[in-house]
């Protein structure tokens, strides 16, 4: 589903990704664990084609490398649910509208179809009570939950989660991670980037360590469930 072949990404003279080769199949689950500024977000951005590699080829689904046309890029992105590290909620829409937008963009315009899906997603992240608040009126953790609801509401084929529990205390974090795992088990591929070892442990799946732009395969861990509450 995703494959990186000798991908290098430079920003000016700063090397963000250094000769990364890596692939991930449909329905697979992978964690990229790395310190801050290791290049995790850069790697995810290459997948969504927000940025282009300096050299090497990124293939996502049937979209292979190079610059995509605007409409192809849009098409690609509609199959991916991204949880951004900085959430990227629309500040002038309520929680409900933010989540519903995902469905509108995917071409679902029937209220009758839409409404139950949005409600289910809000229920899954525990934001039903906040559906009519604007993002600015949410606590930081609630905003992150809203971002997660938006990414999963359409049950995309691939979920990219960039530090999806950064704003949550351990208990909520565990809940959110198990939600993501459940959706993964329903068939979605899940790629999660994090700076925290405990998150990586909970997710299990294939585990990569990203250190100063170099990707290292850290064997397959058993999908643990205990280490989460640890701190």
């Amino acid at each position, binding site marked *: 589903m995703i494959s990186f072949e000798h991908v290098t990404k430079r920003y000016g003279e700063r090397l963000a990704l250094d000769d990364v080769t890596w692939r991930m199949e449909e329905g697979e689950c992978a964690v990229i664990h790395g310190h801050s500024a290791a290049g995790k977000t850069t790697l995810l951005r290459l997948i969504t084609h927000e940025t282009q590699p300096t050299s090497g080829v990124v293939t996502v689904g049937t979209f292979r490398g190079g610059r995509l046309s605007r409409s192809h890029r*849009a098409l690609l992105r509609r199959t991916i649910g*991204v949880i951004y590290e900085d959430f990227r909620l629309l500040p002038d829409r309520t929680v409900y509208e933010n989540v519903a937008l995902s469905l509108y*963009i995917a071409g679902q315009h029937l209220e009758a179809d839409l409404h139950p899906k949005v409600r289910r997603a809000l229920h899954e992240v525990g934001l039903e009570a906040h559906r009519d608040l604007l993002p600015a009126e949410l606590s930081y953790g609630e905003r992150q939950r809203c971002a997660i609801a938006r990414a999963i509401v359409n049950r995309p084929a691939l979920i990219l989660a960039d530090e999806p529990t950064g704003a949550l205390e351990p208990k909520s974090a565990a809940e959110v991670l198990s939600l993501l795992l459940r959706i993964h088990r329903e068939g979605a591929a899940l790629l999660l980037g994090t700076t925290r070892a405990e998150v990586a442990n909970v997710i299990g799946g294939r585990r990569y360590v990203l250190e100063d732009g170099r990707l290292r395969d850290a064997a397959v861990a058993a999908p643990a469930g205990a280490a989460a509450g640890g701190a």
Partner: protein
Amino acid sequence: MFLYFWREAWRSFRAHRGLAVTSVLSLTAALTLCGIFVLFDHNARQALNAIGDRREMIVYLKDDISDVQLSTLTDKVKLYFGEPTYVSRQQAWTELSEQLGDPALLSGVEDNPLPASLRVRLKPELLNFTAMEQAAKQVLEFPEVEDVRYGAEYVRRLDEFSAGMRATAWAAGGVVALAIVLMLFNTLRLTLLARRHQVEVMLRMGASDRFIAMPYVLEGLMHTGLAAVASLLLVFALQQGLTTRLAGLTFLPWTWSLSFVLLALGVAWVASTAALNRILRTIGS
């Protein structure tokens, strides 16, 4: 689908009410200017037709022609050039006195020096400078004719005026269309820039350009539609106000009004679609 776009357009309209109001106001200003111009053009055409009636040729007759000669001449003139009216020497004298204003001025004149004449209201096809010149030459050939006068200068000016009018019409139309395009372009650019973050996020969520642009196109159409109707009302008010002074100033027929609105909407549609395409490209990935 369509409902969603209209709802979004309405949201944007309300969210940027100040911007919307300014946009509608400046569009109204531009369109009113254009409307006033169309109004005057419309009335000028009507007036020109009316003035056309007065483009006459005066055929001065020799003093010694007989009634038979006169009536043959009248018939010939009627056949080839237009509707003749006979003005006797006495009538000519009375008219001159009236024109001079002070009848006393001519009271000392005992003998009437003025000739009789035929005033010819020319046929429409002769109503331009060259044709008139031609006609005058032909009339002068008749033996009964002393002299021919026609408003050569006057007609030339009228021709120039109406040509100028038409040129100005095109120029003004072009300028206003350009102004509308620029204004819409700018309003849309500002609306989108004020929502740059939102647009970026939507692009990242996979929204197509059309999906993002449509509400703004609709908003632009709303602005323009409002402005077009408002400017027609303004022009109507102007016409009502002026009609007391410039008697006979008539309002545009409803077909003109309708095409005016539709044309404005058309320009707005093209302008905003083009603008949004460009702006979305600069906002980016």
